[in-house]
């Protein structure tokens, strides 16, 4: 068990927890977005107060300082995910933009009849861009189904799809609707051996698991800052250097060019080639602070804490009549999706809201998955490092009351 001091140390960093004393909210929606620690809020403030300047443009002191901090953040991200080079880190507005950018810059690689593989467990952000790309390019769109556990991808089907030598394989590291940690390293290696460009959507992994893009062997890895205690509006597209060098830019504009004449344009070097326009500078700096925040804690202790809460919640849910758990107990970052017999997920969430508990209800932007699971949606409770055993106990207790209130 994580000691009380450690837990208090996590909690002390989140002003959110102490704000609404009369009506504290039990926040179990960290998979949607995490609360922000004070250091991140302060970093945004400090930046806006003291260092507002555009980056890589002016030669003045403020601009130099802002640029230095901006590039230091890139190096922090490089270290955080163990990329080989800092220039393999491209700033985007979030996972959604990262994947859309990829689907555009990879367009030229796809010929009619080629195969693109994704899975039934994907968030729409890692599903629709590939589906649309396939339609645009007359490519085959193959979707890996669930395995027997109904919580992760079917390895057998995946292997079969790889026989078609897909050009693109896009998979999530962790399912947002279920929390499942997929066998991503194996999946990446198989896909690489089949000769595909391998894209990993790490949006749900980044706030919990250690990430090593080189060990994973993927070509691209994407995530959003707001799911790892950083501000929203900032995300990362990691890409392997040789691929980024070879691929064309998607958006055109300021700072991504080297020389422009009436006749032609030559593009800037990496990473700037893929960063047209003024980036979200303050959020980049906030992201750096969030990385420092996360890395100050002992990683395994942090994970143990989240896993203990997950297991307590899972076991608590199992004891409630009529609950059907969609998420696995193991290999899960801390997300529990469930349905309640005869009850609508919207009713469950609305009633839990009455108990000041924040959960998510709906299809979780994973309609293909919900379809495969034979449900229109679920209630999802997800854990962040600031949650406590008391939160979980209160949640289980309130869910029991909720069901009682709904069945008059």
């Amino acid at each position: 068990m994580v000691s009380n001091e450690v837990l208090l140390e996590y909690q002390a960093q989140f002003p959110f927890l102490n704000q609404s004393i009369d009506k504290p909210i039990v926040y179990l929606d960290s998979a949607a977005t995490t609360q922000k620690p004070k250091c991140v809020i302060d970093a945004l403030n400090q930046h806006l107060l003291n260092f507002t300047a555009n980056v890589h443009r002016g030669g003045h002191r403020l601009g130099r300082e802002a640029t230095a901090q901006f590039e230091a953040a890139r190096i922090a991200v490089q270290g955080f995910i163990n990329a080989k080079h800092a220039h393999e880190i491209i700033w985007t507005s979030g996972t959604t933009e990262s994947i859309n950018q990829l689907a555009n810059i990879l367009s030229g690689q796809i010929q009619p009849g080629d195969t693109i593989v994704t899975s039934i467990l994907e968030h729409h952000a890692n599903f629709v861009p590939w589906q649309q790309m396939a339609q645009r390019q007359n490519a085959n769109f193959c979707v890996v189904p669930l395995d027997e556990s109904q919580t992760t991808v079917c390895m057998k089907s995946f292997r079969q799809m790889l026989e078609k030598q897909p050009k693109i394989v896009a998979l999530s590291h962790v399912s947002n609707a279920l929390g499942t940690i997929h066998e991503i390293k194996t999946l990446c290696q198989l896909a690489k051996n089949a000769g595909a460009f391998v894209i990993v959507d790490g949006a749900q992994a980044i706030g919990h698991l250690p990430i090593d893009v080189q060990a994973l062997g993927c070509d691209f890895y994407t995530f959003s800052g707001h799911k790892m205690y950083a501000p929203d509006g900032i995300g990362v597209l990691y890409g392997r250097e040789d691929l980024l060098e070879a691929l064309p830019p998607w958006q055109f504009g300021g700072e991504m060019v080297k020389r422009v004449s009436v006749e032609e344009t030559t593009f800037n070097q990496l990473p700037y080639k893929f960063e047209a326009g003024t980036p979200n500078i303050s959020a980049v700096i906030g992201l750096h602070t969030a990385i420092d925040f996360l890395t100050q804690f002992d990683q395994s202790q942090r994970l143990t804490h989240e896993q203990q809460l997950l297991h307590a919640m899972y076991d608590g849910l199992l004891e409630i009549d009529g609950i059907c758990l969609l998420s696995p107990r193991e290999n899960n970052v801390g997300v529990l999706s469930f349905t309640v017999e005869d009850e609508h997920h919207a009713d469950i969430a609305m009633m839990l809201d009455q108990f000041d508990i924040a959960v998510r209800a709906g299809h979780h932007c994973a309609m293909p998955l919900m379809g495969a699971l034979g449900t229109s949606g679920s209630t999802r409770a997800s854990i962040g490092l600031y949650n406590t055993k008391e939160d979980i106990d209160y949640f289980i207790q309130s869910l029991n009351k909720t069901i009682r209130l709904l069945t008059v």
Partner: protein
Amino acid sequence: MSNDHLMNNFESTLSYAELLDLFEKAKGWEEKYRQIMLLGKQLKRPDGSLLIEANQVEGCESQVWMVIQKQENTLNIIAYSDSKIVRGLVGLLLIAIRELKLEEIAVFDAEAFFQTLKLESHLSPSRTNGLKSLIDHMIAAAKNEI
């Protein structure tokens, strides 16, 4: 709007005055919820042929279906939702307009009505629970029929 009259699917006989009285007496939110759930229980599932996409109210978390018909000088509303809470809220609304004529429905102040019941903000008509659309359609239909 079709002309053959559909069976109304709301079985509660509570009058508007009785409803106000119930909510006046209800202690705390749990009791109010209980009353809403009881009302929802009396909103029976209509014939499946009505639960089609064409009758669906757009853009809410749960599914809401409705058919509005003119009946003499008032409206016959058949509505249903897959959410129990929304069914209860629909019940509230049906009681509120039960004794109203078309002219009165056309100027029905839903906000004031829900305020009278002193419900939590998330139980008032919104786009997410679908009640807002339902009320908009109801008012438009009444105006149309005057």
